[in-house]
């Protein structure tokens, strides 16, 4: 008797191949309809749960599979190739799990991570507010100590998974007078159903449909002090930023997956559609486009993998994550537009998926920090590294 012993890498390849198969068979056939109807994909979420997607990055000791980010980004890429929104539902979940695993107290890990790993309770991230997006330090939500509890007041905007998530990581001010402001910030873990926490509205969006983007109102929400992430006040901004590194890597992976889907459709269509007596793929102008598209996708993928590997080594990677996110999201916008151009008039109709890709792409330019903010992060790091 022997075992099919293989290095961990071979397992990873099998897992990615399996996700690819799942996306081809289960996601792509239904994505178009779900997206156009703006329906939350309940059945697909159930299947993703069974597959184990929600437990992927959670450490094994807490009921997860303990994947590294290098593997995880390839899973995200595949999901996004099928439907970008699915990768979005997974994203804030993974972010919240990461923040708890990396920054939480042992008690918090034991309490929340197994719940998140099962996927019934998914994670939502509450950082942005109506008047604080790029400028995170401008948030106004407060948490005030009251005996063994804190009382949270304020509103959070743009909360992905805001309606369906079960556990929210919420960035608040615990010391409104702190200078600079970020020193007075903390993250709380708040469960859905806590009295005073309500969804006040959801947004209709250009793309990124099916997954809800909500406003959450916290009206005197009482949260026990044991739900303060990491157990001490003042580290929230740092916690949120380290979570955002993961978020940026994730968005880069979504951009690569989405662009890949657009490229796949475009290169197929270019060989089917004929003009002036030959398939348009035989016109050099189209070939140049296809070559540029594929090259840019590959470049983005390499940036992304470099950032993920650095995160896996436990190193700070805001520079690499920023570069990957910036390049991949801008690339995605260009590639989806090129795919639309290659489809001609049909590309502008709802009959073809490129129309969806084109509407989904701009989200990547904004979510988890805009391109402008990525450039600021990158430049800050560069000036640090190249200081004279």
């Amino acid at each position, binding site marked *: *008797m*022997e*075992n*099919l*012993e*293989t290095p961990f890498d071979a*397992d990873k390849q*099998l*897992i990615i191949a*399996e996700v690819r*198969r*799942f996306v081809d068979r289960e996601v792509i056939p239904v994505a178009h309809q779900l997206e156009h109807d703006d329906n939350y994909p309940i059945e697909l979420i159930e*299947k993703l749960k*069974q*597959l*184990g*997607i929600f*437990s*992927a990055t959670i450490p094994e000791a807490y009921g997860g*599979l303990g*994947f590294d980010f290098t593997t995880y980004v390839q899973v995200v890429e595949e999901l996004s190739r099928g439907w970008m929104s699915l990768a979005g539902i997974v994203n804030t979940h993974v972010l919240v799990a990461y923040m708890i695993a990396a920054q939480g107290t042992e008690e918090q890990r034991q309490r929340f991570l197994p719940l998140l790993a099962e996927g019934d309770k998914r994670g939502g991230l509450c950082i942005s507010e109506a008047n604080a997006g790029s400028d995170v330090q401008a948030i106004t939500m407060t948490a005030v100590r009251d005996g063994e509890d804190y009382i949270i007041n304020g509103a959070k905007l743009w909360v992905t998974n805001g309606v369906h998530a079960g556990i929210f990581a919420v960035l608040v001010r615990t010391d409104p007078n702190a200078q600079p402001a970020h020193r007075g910030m903390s993250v709380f873990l708040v469960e859905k159903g806590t009295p005073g926490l309500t969804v006040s509205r959801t947004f209709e969006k250009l793309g990124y449909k099916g997954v809800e983007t909500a406003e959450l109102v916290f009206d005197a929400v009482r949260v026990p002090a044991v739900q303060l992430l990491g157990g001490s006040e003042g580290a929230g901004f740092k916690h949120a930023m380290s979570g955002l590194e993961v978020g940026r890597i994730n968005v880069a992976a979504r951009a690569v997956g989405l662009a890949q889907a657009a490229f796949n459709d475009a290169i197929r269509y270019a060989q089917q559609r004929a003009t002036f007596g030959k398939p348009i793929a035989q016109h050099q102008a189209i070939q140049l486009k296809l070559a540029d598209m594929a090259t840019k996708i590959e470049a983005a993928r390499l940036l992304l993998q470099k950032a993920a590997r650095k995160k896996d080594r436990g190193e700070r990677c805001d520079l690499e994550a920023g570069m990957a996110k910036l390049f991949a999201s801008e690339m995605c916008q260009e590639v989806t537009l090129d795919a639309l151009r290659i489809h001609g008039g049909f590309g502008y109709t709802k009959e073809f998926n490129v129309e969806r890709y084109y509407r989904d792409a701009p989200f990547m330019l904004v979510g988890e920090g805009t391109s402008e903010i990525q450039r600021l992060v990158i430049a800050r790091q560069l000036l640090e590294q190249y200081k004279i």
Partner: protein
Amino acid sequence: MKIYVCVKQIPDPNTVVSKLDPNTKRLVRSGVSLVLDPGDESTISAAIKLRDTVGNSEVVAVSMGPASAQEAMRRALAMGVDRAILVTDPALAGSDALGTARVLAAILQKESPDLVFCSTESTDGYTGMVPGGIAEFLNLPQLTFAREINVEGAKAIIKRVTLTGYQTVECPLPAVVTIASGSFEAIYPTMKGIMSAKKKPFTQLTLADLAIDPSQVGEAGAREHVATIGKAEARAAGQIIKDDGNSAQAIADFLQRYQLL
């Protein structure tokens, strides 16, 4: 209960355009991407479903194939099969349905199964002769085209697909059962399943382990000879029925002729 599933690794029907080698007159299997037969995925799922209903049972995947077939076995294990047995031997190259059935039966003989599941036919060769051969070698009853399987006491009861509906058929255990294609939705391996597949028992055997004389299998033992291969007839143009008031009848007649009604 011990449920065995005979599985096969084949050229990926979703990505590989099947080619026949004009010299050997066989399907080209080298240099192409190989997968667990998608039909077998659904047969494995049927076995797992039965195992989980009956309880206290195991599902074992058995296969004959080259060393590369390990990959297909791993996929079966990832789907939830409990253990796997693969017979690999250079002398097996060129085996026909008879030789394959002989080898699979020899494995099963050593294992004393309660049930042996096979897909009705493979998605590459489509001969559909292996399950009958196994039943014959093992001297077991065979139930065919099952779309539903239950076990009651020492009996297997199936719903057998027919052109017009189904028959309920039963037989004593042990038995060989072929599964009608598309009757069971294929289970996806979970990520956990994939990770744990490598920890499950996997046995690789040779002909010597099964005490099979190499002259009875492979090229040497083949009784089936492909005389010629030729191109399939090009598809004829469809028949267009003009609506002159009787088109409904004409369409019904057409469908009836092909037993589609």
